[in-house]
């Protein structure tokens, strides 16, 4: 699958985007990992669709995090992004942190989102099952990291997970990781990766919604999928068995089949 990297201007910010495929546009909002890069699951999503994966301000070479104070500013950023792209309404997939942005976008501007996939999304809070504090991860222990993000820490994708501190990384990659964490922290440090106002406005979402979760998500537990599905009118929850938080990496076949089945 061919892909191109391009720079667009949103609210005066230079934004990095990767895109590929042909067909109706599909917007992918990446997680805190900053995967606006052509990973296999993005390539698969681009089959039959024109997939757009912009990097949020502060991630990769996207500028403008200085002006993004909180999740509201981030949602305004994407509202303007949709205008720049000329999309009245679009299908949106958001993974984890990107799922939070997608849920806010669909709740605040319901007419701009046609179909919505919330994949392992943070953004709300379940008191009995707090979201894992990803900012407190001790990088000295890669095993713990794998245990947190995957159901099976020995699966091939988990073995690719690296953190500074346990392996030698090139400067560019270190810089990307630091920037990604800093930008995520700016939006989601406290309250941790959620917006207390969001659950009160989720009833406004008019998009057809799929909540897609790994059954054994240790970062944003399955209860979050259940709560989203309960609060968004008509939303459906689909659970991938024996799978953790990074479901599109741990079980790409099941994850893609669910997304494609839903988007049609």
């Amino acid at each position, binding site marked *: 699958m061919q892909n191109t990297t391009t720079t667009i201007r949103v609210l005066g910010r230079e934004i990095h985007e990767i895109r590929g495929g042909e067909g109706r546009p599909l917007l992918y909002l990446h997680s805190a990992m900053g995967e606006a890069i052509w990973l296999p699951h993005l390539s698969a999503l681009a089959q039959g669709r024109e997939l757009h994966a912009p990097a949020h301000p502060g991630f990769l070479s996207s500028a403008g995090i200085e002006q993004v*104070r909180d999740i509201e500013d981030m949602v305004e950023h994407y509202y303007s992004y949709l205008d720049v792209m000329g999309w009245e309404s679009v299908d949106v997939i958001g993974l984890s942190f990107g799922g939070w942005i997608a849920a806010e976008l669909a709740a605040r501007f319901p007419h701009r989102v046609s179909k919505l996939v919330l994949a392992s999304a943070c953004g709300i809070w379940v008191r009995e099952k707090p979201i894992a504090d990803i*900012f*407190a991860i*001790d990088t000295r222990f890669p095993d713990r990291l794998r245990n947190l993000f995957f159901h099976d820490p020995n699966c091939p994708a988990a073995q690719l997970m690296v953190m*500074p501190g346990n392996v030698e990384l090139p*400067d560019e990659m*270190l*810089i990307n990781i*630091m*920037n990604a*964490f*800093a*930008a*995520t*922290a*700016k939006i989601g*440090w*406290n309250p941790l990766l959620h917006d207390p106002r969001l659950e009160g406005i989720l009833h406004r979402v008019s998009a057809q919604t799929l909540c897609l979760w790994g059954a054994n998500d240790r970062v944003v537990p399955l209860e979050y999928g259940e709560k989203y599905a309960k609060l968004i009118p008509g939303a459906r929850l689909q659970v991938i068995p024996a799978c953790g938080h990074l479901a599109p990496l741990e079980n790409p076949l099941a994850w893609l089949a669910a997304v494609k089945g839903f988007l049609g």
Partner: protein
Amino acid sequence: MKHFLFHLMPYRELPHDFEKTHESAWVWAPNSLFDPERAHGYYNEYIDQLAEAEPLGFDGVCVNEHHQNVYGLMPSPNLIASMLVMRTRRIKIAVVGNALPLYNPPTRVAEEIAMLDVISGGRIISGQVIGGGPEYFSFSINPAEARTRFAEAHEIIMRAWTQPGPFEFYGEHYKLRYVNVFPRPLQKPHPPIWIPGAGSLETMEFVAKRRYAYMGIPYFHIDFFKKNYALFRECCEKEGYQAHPEQMGLLMPIYVAETDAKARREFEEHFWYFKNKLIPGLTLSPPGYTSVKSALRIYKSLKDGKTFINGCESWEDVEKGCFAIVGSPETVAEKIVEHASEIGCGNMLGLFQLGSMPSAQARENARRYAEAVMPRVNKELPTTTRPMPAATPFPDERK
């Protein structure tokens, strides 16, 4: 040379296996470990040690701010400073520093330091610091805003002290309709400002530009300090002046006994208590807390595992990196003179109580330093008569 007695106020009697059962001395070390009866003793002994610096002949004392940890029992250094104001008459009291982003509104710092300065007759040094990485967990303050909050808070405080109020300050983080701090400090235009730094170039440039004093965050290899102070002096030169010795402070654990062997014998176990039990977690660096440029520089200089105190495995490592200055009065004086003259610093900040060291021992240590080390150092490195450069004032926006 000016000599300061610095106290961390550590929690002394942690379980012997603490480091095996707890990964961090910070943020998550459970407060069920805290025994108020013991701490009553610690606090009073530590305050006595600080107050005794005056009759011993020190030029000043230093207190600092840390939260939710077993490393230091001083979440409010201003409270301790206020007690020391009443226990002393002559010496400087340096609060190094208040972690500005943790105060909202930051005019609170301007008020408290001004109170202390007025009551003490102008003996306060105002340290202002971004706060340690763990503080951002303990206070739930966004680390990605640490640097911009610090810059704004610092400007508010300096303007509150030097510009007639009331004035309005509408920044990115702080929206203050009426800034009109009452009382203002006694020292004119304001108390000396000390800024601690861990090697970030932005901090050094800021301190050099504003003509404040720079204090290296301790527990690094002596070569790392030397590199940093050389960088700081360069920053001052770029600003068109030569760094004043008292613009630089070197902070070190110090232990003095009759002989080198005796000093090591008496000191070593307390050093290991400190390093093994109290240090883990101190280096937590939450995302965005330092600029990527600085983070990369610090990350690379720490990569060898020998640049920070946590890499010390043997006494040889401690000696080689000069993580503590330990020995007979001659040895200690010689080492201080050697390093301080290379660094060019005019302030020596000593930790005379470290880790589990009992109070009587810490007091004897400080006494031996004052009697036998200070005169030797001062003979080699006399205090300069050159005046300190005047701090750069913030412009009054209404003019």
